[in-house]
């Protein structure tokens, strides 16, 4: 029976090729869009974790409310003790302190007078400790454009674009002008040993990265850090685990003191919660729209096929074939078409998505002024979910379309068949 149906489908291209192509196109689009959106979401989460809030973040309660302004006067103090506690209680995460700050980078001329000056976003990170995750997390080494990674105190790297703007080369000294933890003016000299390009517009426009101990000294916060970040070893955001760690930590630090530590997850701390919910909603809507649209198209295709096969169905009923049997045969045909279309569409969609995952799409012209922490290269993410997300709706839409259009078979009256055939 199956062979009979397949032969019919292969010999009559109008019954197979058009529907298969429609299903394949729809599935391909769904798979590709799903993989692309998952890629954007993953990139957003990873970049935000790496350059901003980690997968979980510990700050003071007071700091959280003004975190966007990097209020170092509200920073954590006694960070070494807090870090030791976190490493002991939550060894599954990699913990590291950070200080974010803003300021100006001033380049002197031969007489020590200001030659060039530009605003910078700064990060004080643990660059020198051998067990620090920062070099890996921030990809400082692979991001070097000129020079090298800081190897000792007093050294820093700056964005390559900033170095060009200031006319500074690796090996030269620049002065950071910022604010101390107590609001006074902070001045500190750094030897710029390298320039970096992270591929994140917000960082590449004007960033300075130095060892956290130098930044602590410069900003008069010897035992302090704005935040302590936690990273999962596989560098993926595990929301349930992050929630669990956060709940356990906060249960133990319930003090009402505004300078007491408090932990937040990436979703809470980054302000991305609404955006992530929106992405999930769009993906669900995408699938629903695909199934509905495909069903309507295939229903229409089924109706046209039924009209074209009006005579064939009439003869089959006239020779005694049961209504239900014909209906089931048409559903089986639809299943075969849906299967073929879904396999083809999934394969092509995954191929496009994989290409975008490997090569990426350069978004720099579109996000050059963006302050969002997101990769310049937009990449898709090929997952098992992306493969299934088009395949199953592809099958469902074909069956639904044929199922609706095939109901017409039951309306054919056997008594009228010969009259219809004669006509």
């Amino acid at each position, binding site marked *: 029976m199956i062979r009979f149906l397949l032969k019919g489908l292969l010999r009559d291209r109008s019954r197979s090729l058009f529907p298969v192509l429609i299903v394949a196109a729809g599935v391909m689009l769904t798979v590709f869009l799903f993989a692309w959106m998952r890629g954007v979401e993953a990139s957003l989460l990873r970049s935000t974790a790496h350059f901003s809030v980690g997968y979980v973040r510990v700050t003071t309660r007071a700091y959280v409310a003004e975190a966007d302004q990097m209020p170092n*006067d*509200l920073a954590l103090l006694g960070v070494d003790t807090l870090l030791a506690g976190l490493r002991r209680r939550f060894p599954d995460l990699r913990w590291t302190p950070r200080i974010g700050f803003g300021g100006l980078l001033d380049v002197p001329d031969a007489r*020590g007078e200001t030659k060039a000056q530009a605003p910078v976003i700064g990060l004080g990170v643990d660059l020198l400790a051998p067990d620090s995750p920062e070099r890996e997390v921030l990809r400082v080494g692979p991001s070097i454009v000129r020079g090298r990674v800081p190897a000792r105190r007093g050294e820093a790297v700056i964005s390559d674009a900033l170095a060009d703007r200031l006319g500074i080369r690796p090996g030269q000294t620049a*002065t950071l002008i910022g*604010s101390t933890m*107590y*609001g*006074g*003016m902070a*001045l500190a000299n750094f030897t710029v040993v390298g320039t970096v390009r992270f591929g994140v517009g917000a960082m590449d426009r004007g960033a300075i990265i130095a060892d956290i101990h130098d930044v602590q000294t410069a900003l008069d916060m010897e035992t302090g850090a704005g935040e302590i970040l936690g990273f999962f070893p596989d560098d993926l955001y595990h929301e349930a685990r992050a929630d669990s760690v956060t709940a356990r930590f906060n249960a133990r630090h319930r003090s009402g003191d505004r300078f007491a530590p408090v932990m937040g997850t990436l979703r809470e701390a980054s302000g991305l919660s609404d955006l992530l919910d929106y992405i999930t909603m769009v993906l669900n809507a995408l699938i629903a729209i695909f199934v509905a649209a495909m069903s309507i198209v295939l229903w229409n295709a089924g109706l046209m096929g039924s009209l074209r096969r009006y005579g064939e169905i009439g003869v089959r009923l006239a020779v005694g074939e049961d209504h239900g049997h014909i209906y089931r045969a048409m559903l089986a045909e639809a299943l075969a078409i849906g299967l073929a279309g879904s396999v083809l569409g999934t394969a092509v969609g995954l191929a496009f998505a994989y290409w975008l995952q490997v090569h990426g799409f350069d978004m720099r012209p579109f996000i050059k002024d963006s302050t969002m922490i997101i990769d310049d290269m937009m990449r898709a993410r090929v997952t098992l979910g992306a493969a299934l997300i088009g395949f199953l709706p592809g099958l469902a839409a074909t069956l639904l379309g044929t199922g609706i259009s095939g109901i017409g078979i039951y309306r054919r009256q056997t008594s009228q068949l010969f009259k219809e055939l004669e006509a």
Partner: protein
Amino acid sequence: MKRLWWMLLAARAGALAAQTPSGDEVLQRVDRNMFAESRIVVSQMIVHGRRETRTIESRSWQRGTADAFTEYLAPARERGTKMLKLGDDLWTYSPSTDRTIMISGSMLRQSVMGSDLSYEDMMEDPRLEHSYSATVSGTEAVDGRSCLVLDLTAKVEGLAYHTRRLWVDGERFVPLREDLYARSGRLLKTIRLNDVRSVEGRWVPMHALYRDVLKDGEGTEFVITSVGFDAAIPDYLFSKAALRR
């Protein structure tokens, strides 16, 4: 009889108006009392931050109203930091970096040593009569002293505070209270001045409390430890070379 009563009332009102100086006259007398050819001040700035209180000591040499040289004496981290103001230009020198940095643009809006004062405040022409026109809007008691309430409006462009309200001791011509407003009418800072003492024939408020109302915290106290007027100050102090000495 009624006519006589009205004449007496009019004569009394005229006498009162003649006694109350105009706003601009009050400003002139305030400036005359407060400013000298030169001034040497040793002071403490007590900054009540959101987290802790810090005391910063400094010595300033001021020449006229345009030039000033300040050396920070304590705490240890700030010791040796110097500031030089020459007219409209301001530089700071930090011994730890051995750099002299010109403070300009948005940096002027930064706080001085974490206090409630900004560098912009330091750059102001201290003679209010140069920058503001004043009207007397009434009288009010401040700390038990009868004060004239002056409403000041900027008469030059580019000032940090477009309007000010000043409570000036009507006898000593020393401001005891000041509210500073933006052009929009928003209150930005308040200043309370007290512990007024006579020094070398001038009335000097030895203690001031500055509050930036847009910031948290208890404000910044400015305490004058010693002050001397019209002393000779060597010219070399008002040069960039002096910053590195």
